[in-house]
């Protein structure tokens, strides 16, 4: 993890005379600057609407009354940092979210992946891991998992730990099973996990090809060349400039004719990289093949 350069981007806000900014905006700017300078985690180019919400949430969970108090705690108590990062990185997803995407991965992307002797996959922003394991199950059923290595990364160590455990509450398994079936799954879904008293723990052979590690899309560079990069509903938290920079990072990390998968309401259209990709199948699936 590296800090930003000498000239970190200015936080977004309306330029105005003193007093036009709300106290909360000032406090938020100061807090984000403090965290960036002290720890190298730079959230200043996160999209403000949900950032506001989640920083507020972090403040409440820490039982503090102001963002300034939260800033003080973060500066002086490094152990508070991981909690803060978790608050800022929580996406709540499910296994086989958007089943139609997994159907398309099976039908359209797997045949492409088969053309490579060894397949490297990057799942960027894997959060608690549900979608990575979904992909691993799919690849297993297609007989491809043995020659795949899946790198699943996230900003938050706490979330990675949860993801690595591969355990999900039994109460959500019914919904996941329905998603799995809708995605074209062919097996008995319950065969993929063992149940203890409250959790479903995924099978070892599904978990083994996945390497979980910490990676910060804001400040870390490319670390390999991949045939498939999945980054779904992560860049929705970034402003345009940061989103475009991260798309460059993915471009640099994707082999020619490799595939980039985005969330269902994200698009390469209107980004500077649109010309370098072709939608696979229906563009609404947001699976793009690098063509130049």
């Amino acid at each position: 993890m590296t800090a930003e350069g000498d000239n970190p981007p200015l936080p977004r806000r309306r330029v105005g005379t003193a007093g036009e900014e709300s106290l909360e905006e000032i406090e938020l700017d100061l807090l984000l600057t403090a965290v960036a300078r002290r720890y190298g985690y730079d959230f200043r180019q996160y999209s403000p609407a949900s950032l506001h919400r989640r920083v507020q949430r972090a403040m409440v969970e820490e039982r503090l009354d102001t963002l300034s108090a939260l800033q003080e705690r973060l500066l002086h108590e490094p152990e508070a940092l991981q909690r803060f990062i978790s608050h800022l990185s929580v996406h709540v997803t499910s296994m086989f979210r958007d089943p139609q995407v997994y159907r398309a991965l099976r039908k359209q992307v797997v045949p492409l992946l088969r053309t490579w002797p060894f397949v490297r996959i990057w799942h960027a922003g894997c959060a608690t891991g549900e979608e990575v394991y979904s992909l691993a199950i799919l690849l297993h059923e297609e007989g491809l998992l043995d020659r795949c290595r899946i790198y699943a990364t996230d900003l938050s160590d706490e979330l990675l730990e949860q993801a690595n455990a591969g355990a999900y509450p039994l109460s959500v398994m019914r919904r996941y099973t329905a998603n799995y079936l809708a995605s074209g799954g062919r097996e008995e879904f319950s065969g993929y996990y063992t149940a203890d008293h409250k959790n479903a723990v995924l099978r070892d052979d599904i978990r083994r090809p996945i390497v979980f590690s910490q990676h910060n899309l804001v400040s870390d560079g490319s670390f390999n060349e991949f045939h498939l990069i999945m980054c779904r509903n992560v860049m929705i938290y970034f402003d345009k400039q940061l989103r475009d920079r991260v798309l460059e990072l993915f471009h640099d990390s994707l082999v020619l004719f490799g595939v980039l998968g985005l969330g269902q309401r994200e698009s390469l259209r209107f980004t500077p990289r649109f010309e370098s990709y072709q939608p696979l199948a229906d563009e609404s699936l947001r699976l793009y093949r690098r063509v130049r």
Partner: protein
Amino acid sequence: MKRPARRPVELVVIGASLGGLDALGVVLAALGPGFPPVAVAQHRSPQGESRLAHLLGRGLAVEVGEVEDKEPLSPGRVYLAPADYHLLVEEGRVALSTEAPVAFSRPSIDVLFESAARAYGPRVVGVLLTASSEDGAEGIAAVHRAGGSTVVQAPKTARSPVAPKAALRLTPGARVLPLEEIGPFLANEVAQAGGRGLKGVQGGAGRR
């Protein structure tokens, strides 16, 4: 606390759940093609069908679309929250989030309204229609605190009065209107502020 002075309407946010589609149709029918952007959080199932925008938009002067991330907010358009995402607004554009459902809802009305209150303050109108949970009540309060105007569907005219009633408990100063007067009221608010977007305004609108 003194509420900031009113300013021209630049954004309307609408929340609804049970019975919301019919109610939304009634409200949106009163809006003309140049009406300020309208962002809508309508509760729907996570596997929601994508035809919702199409169904809702038939025959309207405004164009209804399901939101794409970071889409700019433009007049004459209605921005519908996609299934299984929170819809938020920031200055001039929409934002999406997959953080946890709020009160079992994603999209959540409160999340949309609170973001609009923060970004648009006195330039937003918040409208809460029929809804069967209390989602939206906090949102109306947030818009009110930020100086925006608030409209709550008269509980008697709502298919489900739970949210309107909760909102009025929390924000007694919110304007209460029967469903069919909400659209004309919005059109009138915009027209009075010198905006466009008036479509055949008739008497009875804009009652104060």
